[in-house]
């Protein structure tokens, strides 16, 4: 083996690769298909923006919307508070810095929350050396994912948050009605269901890009006043939430925001 030079091997492999290259015609077709998909995506985004414009108010919708929001809100208030006054201040500041008037503030993960999540991740790592894979928190439910085998070296941890929000016809602001929080290792597949939400399930896979961006693939299935089915592949800047789903029923708007943050060494301590 040792008498085969690397450049010989590379020539062989490059020749092989050249033979597998797609012909121009196929690439042109791919460019066209990508353009069509991106156009559809942009039109879809435009629809979302248009729906955010003030619409005609309807008392019946308002009552229904209020009832729905309240019933879900009960679930939230049982949970540990994710909006402590301190973290809200932090979030507000970060929100202001972004200058985005339509962003979901509850979806931002505050610095204190990050430190808290990192502390939890660190403790779980110590408790389950090499096996702690992910942690989910929603409502009063918490789940832990452990790998069967010990890992030689854990990868980076990522905090991912999903916030489900509603806005009734008379509401001026969006209300967060449910939050799903995850701490997961990069490249770890999270697949779980919820005791508190029959038939609901979630699958997440994250990957931290070398430039600090976070790729998050999500499959969310949640039941409720409006069934939520989200299949999303997003490239997120750390801490910059993105809307990944929206719907409207009976004058009440619903949306799901997603945010992700890398738990850096300073968070992990």
């Amino acid at each position, binding site marked *: 083996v040792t008498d085969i030079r690397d450049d010989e*091997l590379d020539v062989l492999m*490059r*020749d092989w690769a050249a033979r597998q290259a*797609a012909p121009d015609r196929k690439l042109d077709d791919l460019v066209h298909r*990508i*353009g069509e998909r991106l156009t559809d995506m*942009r039109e879809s985004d435009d629809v979302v923006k248009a729906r955010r414009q003030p619409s005609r108010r309807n008392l019946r919708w308002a009552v229904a919307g209020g009832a729905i929001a309240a019933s879900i809100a009960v679930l939230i208030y049982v949970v540990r508070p994710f909006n402590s006054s301190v973290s809200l201040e932090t979030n507000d500041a970060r929100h202001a810095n972004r200058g985005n008037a339509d962003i979901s503030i509850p979806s931002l993960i505050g610095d204190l929350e990050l430190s808290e999540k990192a502390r939890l991740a660190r403790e779980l790592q110590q408790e389950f050396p090499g096996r702690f894979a992910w942690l989910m928190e929603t409502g009063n439910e918490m789940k832990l994912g452990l790998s069967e085998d010990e890992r030689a070296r854990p990868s980076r941890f990522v905090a991912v948050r999903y916030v489900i929000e509603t806005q009734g016809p008379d509401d001026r602001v969006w209300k967060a009605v449910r939050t799903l929080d995850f701490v997961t290792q990069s490249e770890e597949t999270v697949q779980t269901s919820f005791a508190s939400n029959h038939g609901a399930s979630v699958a997440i*896979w994250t990957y931290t890009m070398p430039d600090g961006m976070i790729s998050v693939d999500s499959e969310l299935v949640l039941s409720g006043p409006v069934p939520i089915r989200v299949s999303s592949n*997003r490239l997120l800047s750390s801490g910059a939430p993105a809307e990944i789903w929206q719907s409207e029923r009976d004058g009440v708007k619903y949306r799901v925001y997603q945010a992700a943050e890398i738990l850096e060494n300073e968070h992990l301590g």
Partner: protein
Amino acid sequence: MEQRSRPEKPLGATDSELISAFRGSGDRSVLDALVRRHIGRVRAVIYPMVLDDTLADDLTQDTFFRAVRGLDGFRQDSEFSTWLCSIAMNCVRSYFSRRPPPVASLDATLNLSINERPDSAAIGQELSDTIRRALERLSPKLRSAIVLISLNGLDASQAAAVEGCTAATMHSRLHEARAQLKRILKAHLS
């Protein structure tokens, strides 16, 4: 890599200029130009990883889809092409996380009986199949080292940036990948 007649850099704007123009205008033709410029390279990164034409096409589309959605976060502290490579590899990892790559049987017979030389004109179907099976036997991390450096000409630092590891790790992976490939392909290379 022989790359057909398509120019690597069409006349006119740089990547940065096209990105700025698209951010400002949302013009589909600007985006098409950007996609057209890089699509051959992106597919050339993805195909040897997944070794399936249809899947490579799908993941190539996903790569640009994700890239455009994440364009606001592109800080331009790396080349756009390198950034795209990172996203392409990420799409592959994401796919493998859902469907782990089949591990080729260790006792697979590779039929290395022909006496072809490693020049481009002489590579036949049998050798092509052998190389494909050899790549299948590499772990995704070793395969990515060969794909990024040997096949697509990135240097170890660029490949390390794509893979999120150190250049030394990348050198080590490349060394191991080449050693494994040589063992499998030695009948063709001798």
